[in-house]
């Protein structure tokens, strides 16, 4: 299952500076929880605590599915659809 994964707010630095990557997810991996795990194992290039905490993302990261907050979509349990756009964005504090 192909999904587009995007990183911003500085998170891209942990993924070789890439702002988006195409991910081909095994059919058995269908939830956002699975995706976080998949990214951690296959794509994350820096210390994993910069991105994950337990089986979820660390606090301070907003997760979006097709530009919708994952809190409106069952968070970790959301079932990913073919060609979903999943964005992981670190919140900014500067001004």
């Amino acid at each position: 299952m192909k999904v587009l994964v995007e990183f911003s707010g500085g998170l891209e630095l942990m993924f070789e500076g890439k702002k988006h990557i195409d991910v081909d997810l095994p059919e058995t991996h269908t939830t956002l929880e699975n995706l976080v795990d998949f990214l951690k194992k296959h794509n994350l290039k820096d210390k994993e605590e910069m991105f994950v905490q337990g089986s979820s993302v660390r606090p301070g990261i907003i997760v979006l599915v097709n530009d919708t907050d994952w809190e409106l979509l069952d968070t970790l349990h959301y079932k990913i659809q073919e060609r979903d756009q999943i964005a992981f964005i670190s919140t900014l504090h500067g001004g």
Partner: protein
Amino acid sequence: MVEQREQKDLSNDEYMRYSRQLIMGQIGIEGQRKLKNARVLVVGAGGLGSPASFYLSGAGIGTLGLVDGDVVDESNLHRQIIHTESRVGMNKTVSAKQQINMFNRHVDVVTYQTHLTPENAREIVQDWDIVMDGSDNAKARYLINDICMILKKPLVSGSALQMEGQITVYGYNGGPCYRCMFPKPPPAHTVTNCADGGVLGVVPGIIGNLEALEVIKIVLGFSDEQILTKRMIFFDAASMRFRNVKLRERNPRCEVCGDEPTLTETSTFDYDDFCQTNCNKYALIQI
């Protein structure tokens, strides 16, 4: 609170000065009067507060409060356009007030030459209608959020770093607050190096202006769909893309804006302990 105050009318000078925006259907004389009678508090007279203070003043916000304990530094000037070289070393709110006084004599500028603290937050914020977050660190953002939710003030919140910016309105029309979005701060061990990530000055310029716009629209009474509540804009300046995102609703179990809040006084909450080292300036880029 707005209703209880005596409503000031526009002078002839003001009709002339604001003529170019008065003629708009969305403003009119009634709208201009609302702007004059509005009291807007801008926390932080830096990269976000500079442009926002200019445009809030220009639009005719009658009373503008500025909170900042920092002094102007020359390395601020690449983005903090309301200050000048000769005012380096001066408190930022005083410097901003000097420029605003030269720019629009009809604006009453109130300066608080201090950082917002858990102890002074209630006293400073309670007299204002709307608060704009122009701060630059996570600890300040939680504190500003909490006092606004406790006092039920709409909070227009923006942030910027490097070439990205984010903006939303918290605590408005059933939308979430900052704690609904981020109940836990980023863990301390994810923030090992708190060096400054840098910022291209015009990026907070854009975000600060968008914040001023939302403040003005709230004062003018724009409809709930038009205000950036339950929505957030993510701006990527490098690719010139704006992402308009649908956010969650207010969390009824939120500590500060929920149905049974447990956080009802900022002075009893330990922000230093809550945020630990990650609440330093520009912390989040060092992930």
